[in-house]
């Protein structure tokens, strides 16, 4: 369990998102405290990935407020009106929010080390020597010190995902988003990625994890949110939600995955 304190890191207030006439998120309100690990579970198409992508403004919310560390995402508020952010300002907000994708999305033309070094050098403008030392430490932290000079194509899926985690950590984010990080992995490679994530949680990182790994949710998460059809159906302490679901839809879903 990670040490959660009381400052909210992410606050979603009646967040909705539509693609055309298709309403994917319907008035989602939730709060993630600093240092908390929240797992989002639910059937595919329930809107959990979309919600995650709204948090770092990869998707623009249709209505409602979404803020990270007290800062409104994607908009500036002045004189009681909202102003759309310039791309530059949105990019600055994203620096502090790490994201890990289902399909890893490593840069295939760069080695593992170059993948990790890219953003700190280009975005933060840090010196190469310092960044490299830090990148090697991060790769060691995810157990890949010896694979630093490998291209992604020569790494297994689990190794690629661990590099992707190191790449996100290199920006020293205050929040980490995981979008089904183990769904594209062979079953025997899932464990190594979850181990890295568990260590990260233990170190006090605030994390929102979209996952189907109920074991991970039970063991690592401080809170669990079950979503279906774009709404939060049920949320609470993972062990309680998983062992004693109150809602019929939660029960039906859990009976299939557990």
């Amino acid at each position, binding site marked *: 369990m990670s040490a959660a304190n009381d400052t909210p890191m992410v606050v979603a207030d009646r967040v909705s998102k539509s693609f055309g006439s298709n309403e994917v998120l319907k008035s989602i309100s939730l709060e993630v405290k600093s240092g908390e690990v929240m797992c989002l579970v639910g059937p595919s198409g329930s809107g959990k990935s979309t919600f995650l992508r709204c948090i770092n403004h990869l998707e623009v919310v249709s209505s409602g407020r979404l803020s990270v560390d007290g800062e409104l995402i994607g908009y500036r508020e002045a004189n009681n009106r909202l102003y759309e952010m310039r791309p530059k300002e949105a990019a600055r907000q*994203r*620096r502090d929010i790490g994201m890990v994708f289902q399909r890893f999305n490593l840069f295939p*033309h*760069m080695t593992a080390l170059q993948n990790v070094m890219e*953003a700190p050098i280009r975005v933060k403008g840090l010196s190469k020597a310092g960044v490299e030392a830090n990148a090697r430490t991060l790769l060691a932290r995810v157990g890949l010190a010896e694979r630093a*000079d490998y*291209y992604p194509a020569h790494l297994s*899926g689990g190794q690629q995902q661990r590099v992707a985690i190191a790449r*996100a950590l290199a920006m020293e984010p205050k929040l980490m988003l995981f979008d089904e990080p183990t769904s594209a992995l062979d079953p025997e490679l899932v464990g190594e990625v979850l181990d890295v994530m568990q260590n990260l949680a233990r170190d006090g990182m605030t994390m929102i994890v979209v996952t189907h790994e109920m074991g991970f949710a039970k063991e690592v998460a401080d809170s669990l949110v079950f979503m279906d059809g774009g709404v939060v159906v049920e949320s609470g302490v993972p062990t309680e939600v998983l062992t004693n679901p109150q809602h019929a839809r939660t029960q039906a879903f859990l009976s299939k995955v557990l």
Partner: protein
Amino acid sequence: MTDTAATAEKTEPGIKAIRLRHPWRNTFAVVLLIIVALFIADAAMRPAYNWPAVGKYLFDQRISQAAFVTLQLTVYSMIIAIILGVTLAIMRLSPNPVVNSMAWVYLWVFRGTPVYVQLVFWGLIGTIYQSIDIGLPFTDPWVSFPTRVALSAFILAIIGLALNEAAYMAEIVRAGLLSVDSGQEEAATALGMSWFQTMVRVIVPQSMRVIIPPAGNEVISMLKTTSLVTAIPFTLELYTRSRDISAVTFETVPMLLVASIWYLFFTSILMVGQYFLEKRFARGIGDRRPDKKADDATAAMTGVTPVVGGNQPTVVLPPNDPDQGDRR
């Protein structure tokens, strides 16, 4: 028992079997060789080819200078075409409708008319616009100079070739940019990289693998299209120069052979260059491994299961296929 086992093991790697024969393949190759040999023998004798004249003019200074001019035309116009093409491709992909339609109209005009016609137009530009004025509209110009002085035939040739080629390069570059997985842009954006950084560092390097083969094609095509600049008229490039010489010496066929040999020589060099460029941008895709030893060392950490059984020595199972991870 042990003997048979040993012999069986020995013979196993080399299977003795009658190899599949390809009689038609061989027959066809022989027939083809005979035809080619007859053609070459005939061509060597035929007076119309006049090989001594080919040898004489191949390294004639006028010809080698013209070959150099052709190379200059190709390189300069290609450089401009690539820069303009990349710009147009990015404009075409831009969400800004003004920028997008500008690029579309450019492509419509320059791809929709023959390059020869465009070159004739560029040649006439000095007649259509007799002076180039710099200043505000409806006021007296600050600077004004005659077009013919400012733009030589050489520069007009480069402009004409480059602007036409840019339209084709734009489509090649656009196809390349679209070939990169959208997850790459997302990952770069999520790291806080700007749109420009994402393009330059992530999208464009990956698109190069798709862009280079057709772009190489375009360079070779450009080398040959330079022979059309006689429409401007610009007469110092390889083809027009050799035609001019043959107009005086009446050695038409030998001069065509001379020009062809030079064109072939340049395209061969370009093809070698393309090979190395392709290799460079395939990094991370091919099966090049940085270090076999390091691979074995880390294999023990991840995918390898040591199996210990009975009185046998410890057997280490081969590592999992390192490429098994999902490739995009």
